[in-house]
């Protein structure tokens, strides 16, 4: 047996031994997702056991180094582990913006102390993070942001407002872009970390068209942030932010459809048989969906071997999010009047309608489709003009 096959067998045996049966059923909704953090309430003993087992093994962040709470797995081993987890239907033991976004940024820009401290907390699910980027006046033009940190020697005093802060009302800490030099647009921003319980921090949920409130407005009123809580150099936070946005785009582009290559048409065969035009739309969608999967696979293979253009994730984000919106339009059309029901148990609490509305943000958050097209045009196609 090759090393990878040995690893596969071991991983499988470990999962079978440690993943409780309850955690091998699909999550029904957001409440079944483990986000960790100081105030997280486990939905079941099984959810808690599953997290603890993964933390002990380093499997909440399998590809992170062992010193920072991971299992130190190679890319291939991580892929095998995920594949085996999918085969057994194992739920993700821990979801977090710390894992997806802050961790990779710390790995690249953080000090050794920061990696051990913050990445360890993330890996163990102890601290739940949120992201403070957008401001009311700074959406696509993020670099125009105004939240200001005044230099007070060993600390900054931060004042301002962030918006679209995901789960800010549930998060323990925030990684936040703060202007530390008003005279330099790009090189006047710092990447700061601070506790959401710091005096002067307050949040207010924003109700979306989906009826849910995954985002907040976040206010900073004379918030004191010690100088050692900066990632990277002073005034070079934009480099960290850009790196992190690349990760966010990859993450969102991966959402091109949660159903993977399995067509959603098969389950709706009867409806589609009676509506040839809708069936045709579904068929063309499936062509695009299969295409996007192959495209993603090719992109990852080129990325790993350093052949992909550095701006290519912008293209994938554009294609993937537009595809996901289309998928949800079709789900609504096929679902008919039942998909319109907003609260009933029959309609699973309006999940189709709410998901459909939520996906409209996919092509806005993390860089709008229009900004993605600008970037592709200028950086990849090298079209002229500012």
């Amino acid at each position, binding site marked *: 047996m090759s090393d990878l096959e040995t690893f596969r067998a071991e991983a499988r045996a470990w999962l079978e031994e440690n993943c409780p049966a309850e955690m091998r059923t699909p999550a029904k909704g957001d409440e079944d997702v483990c986000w960790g953090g100081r105030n997280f309430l486990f939905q079941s003993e099984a959810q808690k056991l599953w997290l603890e087992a993964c933390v002990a093994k380093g499997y909440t962040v399998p590809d992170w180094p062992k010193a920072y709470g991971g299992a130190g797995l190679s890319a291939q081993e991580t892929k095998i582990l995920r594949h085996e987890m999918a085969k057994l239907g194992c739920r993700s033991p821990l979801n977090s913006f710390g894992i997806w976004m802050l961790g990779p940024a710390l790995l690249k820009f953080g000090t050794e102390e920061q990696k051990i401290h913050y990445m360890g907390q993330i890996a163990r699910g102890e601290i739940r993070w949120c992201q403070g980027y957008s401001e009311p006046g700074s959406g696509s033009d993020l670099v125009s942001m105004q939240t200001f940190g005044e230099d007070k020697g060993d600390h900054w005093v931060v004042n301002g407002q962030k918006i679209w802060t995901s789960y800010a009302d549930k998060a323990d800490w925030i990684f936040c872009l703060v202007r530390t030099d008003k005279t330099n647009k790009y090189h006047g921003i710092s990447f700061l970390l601070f506790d959401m319980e710091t005096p002067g921090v307050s949040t207010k949920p924003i109700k979306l068209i989906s009826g849910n409130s995954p985002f907040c407005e976040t206010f900073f009123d004379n918030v004191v942030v010690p100088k050692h809580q900066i990632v990277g150099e002073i005034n070079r936070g934009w480099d960290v932010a850009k790196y992190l946005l690349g990760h966010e785009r990859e993450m969102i582009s991966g959402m091109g459809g949660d159903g993977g290559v399995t*067509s959603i*048409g*098969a389950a*709706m*065969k009867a409806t*589609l*048989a009676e509506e040839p035009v809708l*069936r*045709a739309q*579904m*068929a*063309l969608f*499936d*062509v*695009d969906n*299969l*295409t*996007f999967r*192959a*495209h993603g*696979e*090719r*992109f990852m*293979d*080129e990325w790993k*071997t350093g*052949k992909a253009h550095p701006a290519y994730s912008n*293209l994938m984000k*554009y*294609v993937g999010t537009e595809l996901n919106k289309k998928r949800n339009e079709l789900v609504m059309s096929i679902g008919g009047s039942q998909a319109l029901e907003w609260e009933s148990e029959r309609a699973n609490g309006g999940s189709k309608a709410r998901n459909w509305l939520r996906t409209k943000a996919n092509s806005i958050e993390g860089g709008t489709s*229009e900004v*993605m*097209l*600008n970037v*592709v*045009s*200028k950086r*990849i*196609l*090298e*079209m*002229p*003009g500012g």
Partner: protein
Amino acid sequence: MAMTLNDDQNMLRDSARDFMASEAPVTHFRKFRDMGCKDGFSHGLWKQFAEMGFTGILIPEADGGMGMGQIEAGIVLEEIGRNLSPSPFLTTSVAAVAALKLADKAMRDRWFPGILAGETVIGIAIEEGVKHRPEKIACVAERSGNGFKLTGQKQFVVQGASSDMLIVAARTAGAAGETDGLTLFAVDKDAAGLSMEAARLVDSAVAAHVKLDGVQVDADAVIGEVDGGWAVLSKMLDAGRVGAAAEMVGVGTGAMDMTFEYLKTRKQFDRVIGEFQALQHRAAHLYGEMEGARSIVLKAQSLMDEGHAKAELYVAAAKAKAGLACNLSVREGVQMHGGIGMTDEYDIGLYMKRDRSLNEFFGDAYYHADRVATMSGY
């Protein structure tokens, strides 16, 4: 398999790219078009293809060929597409070889040497109506003497009149609409009762309408099994489809590159038109579509080469996506070129014509999207 080309494949691409650009660029195509060439391609170029090793790229090594797969054939086809190089490569070296690989040794020995030498051309006589409907084949092959007697008609037989042999699909049992009961035959172009009328197409290729009026063939003209022709036909069609898709990636990319270059040089309102966001966004979207097409074609090729169970689904999706993306590319190409794009002197219109023909070849995007739906269970 990794979705990137390996070193050998990159070398093949470089040599195919250099070869087509120097020996068969668009000016070569124009020359043969303008002289009203009855074949629609150069026999001399076909010989050069053989010298490069292209003609036998899919022929097994045991039969004297290169023994390569759809990925390699697709690499050559992409360069053919990019340069609009006219040749029998797609029909003869890709589709016909895919069928003949499944034939007995005598049949392979009869046809492979000529293909390897760049001397033999083979026509694919499948279509009976104006749209691709292989299961509806009605052409009849009755048992007669030591073999069969073929009666019926075929159309859209590309390079049929220039072919040495036609692969003819006919019904030995069953009724039109059934996949069982079909048989494939290798029919010599000089066979008594076979007549052809050549018609020039929009892209200057020449396709034949074929009449089979009691054409007598021996039993050894059968490719594969009697009544079991669907299996061979499917392989031949899928090879041709994924090949046409690869060629469309070349046509679409060629048109796209030409258009992007134009956007960077053409000036209006005192600036290059590539500065206009209205055009930049369309350009970026087109690029995404072509990149998607390139990806699904590579995926389909590699699944075919692996003999994967899902290959048929991916070939259908690849033919559909390549068709849609290439079509978008040539339409945007002509529009973004403005008036000059409408002139015969400028090349972009030639790409539009080629796209139309390749889209129709072995089933258009709508036909294949329909198959994707059926294979996906609805």
